[in-house]
Each structure stands twice: as structure tokens, then as C-alpha cells.
């Protein structure tokens, strides 16, 4: 591959980053709050709710994400003969998957806050809602930030799986260019793009961690 082609491929792959980032951001927006809700449901005193949640987490963590993506997209078609947008399907699959992983991180974070915090809040008259959002959650966020950043980085790279149901993101383009040009350079360029993105994410998280460093 000559310089011109390389520049051309670089541009083509860059146009694919948009889709990758869209998947990434939308997944985070939905899966993080869902993760908190799942964590609370998992901790619920109501047996039914906690059992269902446990089963959900087992199912998601126990099966390949590729299977889940394909299932989410094709199941409605096979069962109800209903089709829908591929992009929506990939977001749904990712949110369901990542909410499970995030929920376990949140749960360990919530459980790490001492009972004394809740008791102090109770005696001061905070209701359960206030206690959670004003007292517990802010402390949980500090605790869970490092493991969350791991998952977020993994999510960015997992966006490359979107192509299996035909959503064309950056890595799908890279593969196409590689076989078209008969060269690994497009793959390398994709790698560099991922690297840059992960680097940016790492910086964002370390900034966040620093910001919460004001207490320990």
C-alpha cells in the first residue's frame, strides 16, 4: 500500500469511528443507571426480585456476548416474525450485557459502605431515597470508579462485535479495507484508533478519580 492509499484508508476508518462511539456512548448512558437498579434489585429483601436478578446475571455472564447479540436481533424474527433496526438491536444487546457486569461492580461498592452510614442517615431523618442518593451513592462512585473504568475500556473494544449483525462500525471497515488492499495496514490503523480512544478514556477516568480524591 502506498502513501495515498494509506491516507485514504485512514480517512475511511475515521468515518467509522462515529458509529463505534455512538454504540459506546448510548450503551453507557443506558447500562450504568440500569446497573445501579440491578444492583439494588440483587440486594433486595424480596426473595423473588433478588432471585430473578441473580438468574439474569448468571445468564448474561454465563453466555458469550456474540450469542446474546445474535439472539437479541434474530429472536423476535424467529419467534414473532418481527424485524427491527439492527443498530437498535446492538444497543439493546450491549445494554443488557453491560448492565449485568456494572451491577456486580455497583453491588460490591454498595456493600462496602458501612451499615453505620445508613444508621447515621436514618437517625438524622433521611428517608431511604435520600439516604441512597445523598449518602450512599456518592461514596459508592468513588469506590467503583477503577473497576468501572476497566469495563468501559472493554466496552469500547467490544463495539467491534456490532458487525456480526451487520452494523458497520470502524473495525468492520478496517477488515474490508484489509482484504480489498490485501494489506494489514488498515488493521494497524484501526488498532491505533482504538489505542488513542482508550488513552482518552483512561485520562478521563484518572481525572475523575483525582476529583474524588478530596476525601478518603
Amino acid at each position, binding site marked *: 500500500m502506498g502513501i495515498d492509499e494509506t491516507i485514504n484508508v485512514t480517512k475511511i476508518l475515521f468515518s467509522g469511528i462515529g458509529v463505534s462511539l455512538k454504540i459506546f456512548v448510548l450503551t453507557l448512558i443506558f447500562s450504568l443507571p440500569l446497573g445501579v437498579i440491578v444492583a439494588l434489585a440483587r440486594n433486595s429483601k424480596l426473595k423473588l426480585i433478588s432471585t430473578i436478578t441473580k438468574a439474569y446475571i448468571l445468564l448474561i455472564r454465563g453466555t458469550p456476548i456474540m450469542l446474546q447479540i445474535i439472539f437479541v436481533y434474530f429472536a423476535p424474527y424467529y419467534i414473532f416474525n418481527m424485524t427491527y433496526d439492527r443498530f437498535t438491536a446492538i444497543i439493546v444487546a450491549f445494554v443488557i450485557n453491560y448492565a449485568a457486569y456494572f451491577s456486580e461492580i455497583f453491588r460490591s461498592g454498595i456493600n462496602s459502605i458501612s451499615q*453505620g*452510614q445508613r*444508621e447515621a442517615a*436514618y*437517625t*438524622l*431523618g*433521611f428517608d431511604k431515597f435520600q439516604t441512597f442518593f445523598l449518602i450512599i451513592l456518592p*461514596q459508592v462512585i468513588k469506590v467503583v470508579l477503577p473497576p468501572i473504568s476497566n469495563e468501559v475500556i472493554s466496552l469500547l473494544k467490544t463495539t467491534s462485535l456490532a458487525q456480526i449483525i451487520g452494523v458497520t462500525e470502524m473495525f468492520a471497515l478496517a477488515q474490508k479495507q484489509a482484504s480489498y488492499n490485501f494489506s494489514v495496514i488498515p488493521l494497524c490503523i484501526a488498532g491505533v484508533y482504538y489505542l488513542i480512544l482508550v488513552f482518552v478514556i483512561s485520562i478521563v477516568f484518572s481525572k475523575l478519580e483525582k476529583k474524588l480524591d478530596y*476525601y478518603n
Partner: protein
Amino acid sequence: MNVLEVKQVSKKYGKLDVIKDISLEVKEGETLVILGPSGSGKSTLLRCINNLEKINSGNIIINGEEMIKEYKSSKPIYNNKEILNKINLSTGMVFQDFNLFPHLSVKENITQALISVLKKDKLEADGIAYGLLKKMDLISKANSYPCDLSGGQKQRVSIARCLAINPKIICMDEPTSALDPELVGEVLKVIKDLAKEKRTMIIVTHEIKFAEEVADRVIFMDEGKIIEEGSPSQVIENPKKERTREFLKRYINIKEDKMEKLNSNEVEPKKVIKFFEEISEIPRESGNEEGIKNYLIKFAKERNLEVYEDKDYNVIIKKEAAKGKENNEPIALQAHTDMVCEKRADIRHDFEEDPIILYKDGDYIRANGTTLGADNGIGVAQILALLDSQDMKTPKLEAIFTVQEESTMIGAINIDLSKLQSKKIISLDGGREGKILVGSANCLEWKSRLEKEYISVPEEYTRYELKYDNFKGGHSGGNIGDIKRGNPIKLGISILKKIEDVYIEEVFGGSQVNVIPRDFDIKFYTKPSKLLEIENLINEQKEFYGKVNIEIKEIAKGERCFSEKLTNRIIDFIYNYENGALEYVNNNVILSCNMAEIKEDENYVNIGYSTRANNLSLRNKYLERLDKLVKKNGLEIFWSQELKGVEQDINNDLILKCNEIYKKIYSRNLEKMITQGVVEGGFFLSKVNDLQYVCIGPNTEDVHSPNERVSITSLKNTYEYLQELLISF
């Protein structure tokens, strides 16, 4: 009005009853302190009141609102949220481990509930927070985070946070238990202030002294029940129930029932007792006399008396003669300012800090489980009373206060008596009414040693350990005449001497060179056939000495033992050492010796011993014998010292005068005593030519022990006698 009513509340954790049918009431403005061992349910009770734990039966009524609405099939149904919220805001809780919100600043910790729960606007909330922080002396920390505060500051913030919602009742669950000792005070002070403001509080604490100060009422709990309830003075000072006493004993010194605080206004001689009280406030363990020295200097300056001190903190105070006695010879009075500090194992007392509280126990003054310091504080107090009096017709008085009599004698050794005009010293360090000390022993102490030599253990020898302990011991001066005390070092060695054919391996006995040994431990090798003979000898000794432990046992064989030469030297020296009282006059011992200690170091076996003599010619004969024995066994003397004795004409002016006055009052003679102990007078006599010295004092019992006590009647008699005596000069 009752702010809180706990009605027959029980609480179980599974099958464990934590609270059993407890009822109590708290009035508005009352401070209730709950005491009790851990696991007694006191914290759980507080948690139930704060609805942090659900109760199993009974009811809790706070500010008129019932926590439990009703019982359905004996299960409690809690009231609705609205009422529980009301109750919740009526009670505040201060936790042992603070539970501050770490992500919020100090100010926000306080304002968060005001804003979110009580719906106050931010400005108002900030105002309340600053007000409370000012009260807690924490304004400067308003924007800090809890992690930057000390434990004491954290707990004060947590108290402020609790006060912010203005609860009717403040519950505190061991508020100082998680604090370093030096931070406890600041938190207790804040709580005391709240009590003064008449805040209603329930406090669970282990700070008994604080409880006594702050509580209006005290409850003692154990095993989930209230054992005792009443005012602090009832429950803490005079607990009725054995369990309460047992518990309190771990924290404070509970006095014996029959003892009452000594009141210096009621007990004669008032002035002496008043001064004794004052000096008992001052810690004065031997070697720590600066405080009492300062007291004496101040005493003299306040009365315009001439006063001297030296670098050892000895003090001399002089008082001019009464009118008409200016030309009479001055008289010196002497006492030592230090005391022996001993306490009973169950008593908390810091001899560097705590004053000694005086109690009256029948005719005795005593402390509560510690030495009293009547030896020689009661002497100091009598001298101060004499110096203080305005109207006594005495000649010029010179008061000598010495230091470290109980330890190094450094005060008596170093004191400069060149400023002393008097040729007569009356010491008040005596211990018996009707007796007068006129002579004391000269004491020689030695430490000598034998170099160690080892050989490997011969075949057919078995290793034994012979152990002596629980002997009475005692002072080599005062107690040496009592043969029943026995000397375990001598006894053990005498057994080895009798059975012969032994090799010593290890030897240890005694404690200090001026103390009669209490224990002895020797490991040695001998043939097993000797065991029966040893046991017979032990039984003979046990029979004679009574309640002592002597035992022999076989132990695993080692590799080496002392050489035959070294073994024989040790045995020969100790066996032939003349021990105990050697010579008497009437019933007084006048020559005695003490085999005090035998210890090993890396290269030597060290043996310490001493002799006390009131008669130097008898002693010199003895010293010749001892010298031969030392030389014969090749001992090297590496340390020795001489402590001077009191040797004087026992019919000198001073002694005759003392007797004459005593006879005038009691129509009988004083009994003249010669002690084997070392007294400070010996050193005084060696400094001043033609000095006359006597020592008197009231009856003191069990000196140097926590049972030390002084007889009030005897003190009164002695002090009256002393006054008569001084007026007669």
C-alpha cells in the same frame, strides 16, 4: 414530664435474649448514664430507642408517640411512617465510631439533614451549622473533610450534627471508646456542657468518673437487665449489688464499706492532719521529691521562715525561738519527704499523678489500697504543724527534710549540715509509741564473684531442679532476727552439702543485697540414688518453715555443668557463711548477716551479702572470720559499700531529756531501741561532732505495704509528747 418511656421491652437476636423486660423513664432535662459490661445490652437498648433495632415485646414511647401500634398474635406492629418519622426526629444518636459522612465537608455533614429533611434553606442551615461549630470550637474546620480531623474533633462534629436536628433526647453510645486517651477529655467536656444546658441525654459509657460527674441518674445493666439504679453517689460510690461492685472495681477504686473520708476538721490533732492531707496531695515517690520540696519552700516563704534547699531537694527550715528562749540551745527536727509506693493489684493509682486520699478506718488513717505515706509524711506533717504554730514556747527550731530515705539515702548522705546550729536532732521517722530509737546498725554490703568453669556432665548423673519459693523474705535490717523467715539460699545449699557428690549447673536466688531472699532455684547433677535423702531433707525443712514451697524434680539431661572446684567453692562459701542474727543484747539483735543473692552472668557467679552491726568490736571479729572464708574460696569482691550507723552514748542529754518528759506524762520509762536497720541519723552523726540523735513516732502498721496505716490516738499522744518535749528545752 417523661420524654422517654421504655415499657417492658425485650429484644432477641435469634434465641439470644439481649434485653430482658426492661422498663425505664427519662425526664426532660435529665442525664441518664447507663453502665455495664460489654454484652450487657446497653448499646442495644439505645439502638432500640432509635429504632435501629426492632423490639420483640414491650413498647417505647418518645415525646408521647408510641413506637408500637399494637400486637397481633404477640408480634409487634410498628406505627406508621409518619409517627415513626416524628419519633425519629425526636431522638438523636451519637455513635461510638462517629459515622460521619466522609464525602461531605464538616459543615455539610451538619447542614445536609437540615436542608433535605427539615427543608430549611441553605443560608439558614449554614447559620445553624456555624452556631454549632462555634459551640464545639470547630469553626476553623467548617470546610475540612472528616478524614482530616482527629478522633476527638470527629466526635464533636458528630455531636453537632446530632444537635442540628434539635432532638428531644440525645443518645450517646460509648462516645469516647474509639478515641485515643488524650482526646477523650475534649469530647467529655462538650458533653458536660450539654448536661449543664439541661439537654435530655442517655449516655452509655465506660468513663466512670465522667459518669459520676455528669449523670443525674445511673443505671447499671448486666445480662440484659437493670441490676441497679439510682443517683451516681448511690450506684457508683456505694453500689449495693455485688455485680455492680465487681464491675466498678475494674474502673475505679471502690472503698471498703467501713471507711469514711478523713475530715481534718474533726480529727485531732487537727493541724497535723491538715498538713498531712496537704502533702498527701503531692506525689512523692522516692526520687520524685521536687513537688514536695516546692511545697516546703512555699510553706516557709509564706511564714517568713529562713529556708535552704540543695540540689537533691533536701530542705532546711529554721524558726526563731519564742520570746525568752532566745538563748536556749536550738533543737533540730527531722523527717524524710519521700515514701514507698505500693498498691494492691486491683487498685488503679498513678503514683506520679494521683493524690492519696485519706480515709478514716476506726482509729486508723489509711489510704484505699495504696501505701499511705505516713512513713514519713506524718513526721513531715508534725514538723510543719510545729513550725506553723505561733504560741509555743520553744527554742529555735531547725527542721531538716531529707529525700530518698526509702531508696538511695542520697538525701542523708549529701545533706550539708554545716548551717545547723543544733547539736540535737529529733527524728520523727520512728514507728512505735513508748519507744525511742537510740542506736542503729552500721551496715556493710558486698558483692563478690567466682569465675565460671564448665565441664561436660559425667556419666550416671541425673539432672535435678531444686526450687524454693514463697519464703517471707523481708528487710535485712528489721526482720533478720526472725528465724522462721528462713533463707532459701542457705537451705538449698545445705542440702547439696549434705548429699555430697553433686555438680551445680545453674543457680539463682534472692533479689537485692539488703533484702532477705524469698526464693532460690538451683539445677544440679547427682546420682539418682541420692533422691530419697534429698526428699527427706526437704520434708524436714518444710516442717520447720511451714507455708513455703520447696520442690525437687528430675529434668532432661543437659551437656555441661560447673566444675567440681567451682561447685565446691559455692557450696563451701554459702554453707559456712554465718547467716542471720549472730549476737544479741537483751532482745535486740546487735550483729547480723544476710546471704542475700546469688546470680549468674555470662562469665561469673555473683554472690551478694551484707552484715549489720551495732557493736563494732564484735563486728571486727566477725569480719576476720568472713575474710578467711572469702579468701579460702577464692571469691573476688568487686563492689562494697558502708552505710553509717548511729553509735552514741545511750545516756546522753537528749535521750535522758526525752525519757524525763515521757515519764512526767506517762509515769514510765521510754523503751530504748537499737535497730539493725540503717537510719539517716548514722549519716548525720558522721557529719557533725558531738551530735545527739533520737528517733520517735506514732504507731504505724504494715509500713511499705498497701495496708499501711497510722493510729490516730497514737498520733495525738506522740504529737502532744513532742510539744511538751520541745517546750522543755
